[in-house]
């Protein structure tokens, strides 16, 4: 075809969506200029905030049969977390850091380096058998990393799920409401959480996090 890689595999379309590195993408919080806040804003506070920009985000829909599970594991370098509300993260797969979040009984969110999304998509459609869907949503969501001594307090203002470490251990992931939007929330450490949020709500959530963190102090970091 033309100058874009287009492959029709399994009678589905895969297109590369990233331009060359000459064109720099703008994450949903681009306008907030977090880098300036990080360098000029407060350096101490109970809540730390960082946007992991321009990652590769893929939604996998599937009710995987054993064979599919194996195929997916070899594609991702990690096994699909089959138990509800679980996740896996592996820093050193062949394509770098890969995270998989359970979203629903037939839905996972896969997070990979931004420039790996298309290749991975392509390999999925080439390799994976049976019924499934894989959708690139890298432009539609962004990843917040929130941490700090008071991060749990901040989150208790924002989401209704129980965040006690016994109920919400490291590695647990939930899809839930976040203020008046939604988020996929994964606990990365006792005081560190990953929030995957939708692009159009990102500014609202950024405002919300600033507001909810005000009494604890907010430190913005760059990734």
């Amino acid at each position, binding site marked *: 075809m033309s100058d874009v890689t287009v492959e029709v595999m399994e009678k589905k379309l895969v297109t590369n969506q990233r331009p060359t590195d000459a064109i720099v993408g703008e994450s949903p919080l681009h306008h907030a200029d977090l880098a300036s806040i990080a360098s000029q804003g407060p350096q101490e506070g109970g809540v730390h905030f960082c946007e992991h920009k321009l990652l590769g985000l893929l939604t996998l829909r599937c009710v995987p049969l054993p064979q599919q599970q194996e195929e997916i594991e070899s594609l991702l370098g990690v096994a699909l977390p089959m138990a509800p509300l679980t996740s896996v993260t592996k820093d050193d797969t062949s394509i770098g850091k890969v995270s998989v979040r359970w979203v*629903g*009984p037939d839905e996972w969110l896969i997070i990979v380096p931004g420039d790996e999304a298309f290749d991975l998509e392509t390999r999925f459609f080439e390799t994976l058998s049976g019924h499934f869907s894989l959708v690139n949503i890298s432009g539609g969501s962004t990843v917040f990393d929130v941490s700090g001594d008071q991060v749990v307090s901040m989150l208790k203002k924002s989401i209704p799920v129980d965040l006690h470490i016994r109920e919400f251990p490291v590695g647990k992931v939930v899809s839930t409401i976040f203020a008046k939007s939604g988020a996929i929330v994964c606990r990365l450490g006792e005081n560190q959480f990953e929030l995957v949020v939708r692009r159009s709500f990102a500014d609202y959530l950024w405002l919300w996090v600033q507001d909810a963190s005000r009494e604890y102090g907010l430190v913005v970091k760059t990734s």
Partner: protein
Amino acid sequence: MFYIYCPHCCEHREEEEFHAAGQAHIPRPLDPDACTDKEWGEYMYFRKNPRGIHHELWVHSAGCRKFFNITRDTQTYEIKEVYKIGEKPSVVANAVEVQNSHTQNSSKTPLENTLESQSGATL
């Protein structure tokens, strides 16, 4: 404010994550064109609306986005059981006192066998 056990997420979540989608088990007629106006109207609009045990369809809209069924007492708001689409309720109206009052949040064991392929959407 309900605390609802999602049979897919396998834990209780706040009502705010869910949407009620009306009466459960209303299968779409297999041949709509063969229905009379009356039959079609009853499919669309006429409801049991019981005071007491009720089977209803909910969706975990802010969570796993799955629809599932709840058996709930519409008077006490007690949730008697939660079961997946395609499964049948074990608690039904007019049955003798099935559960005592303090077992509301004990998660229902889903029935093993799939009983109905047509569980029914609600409009």
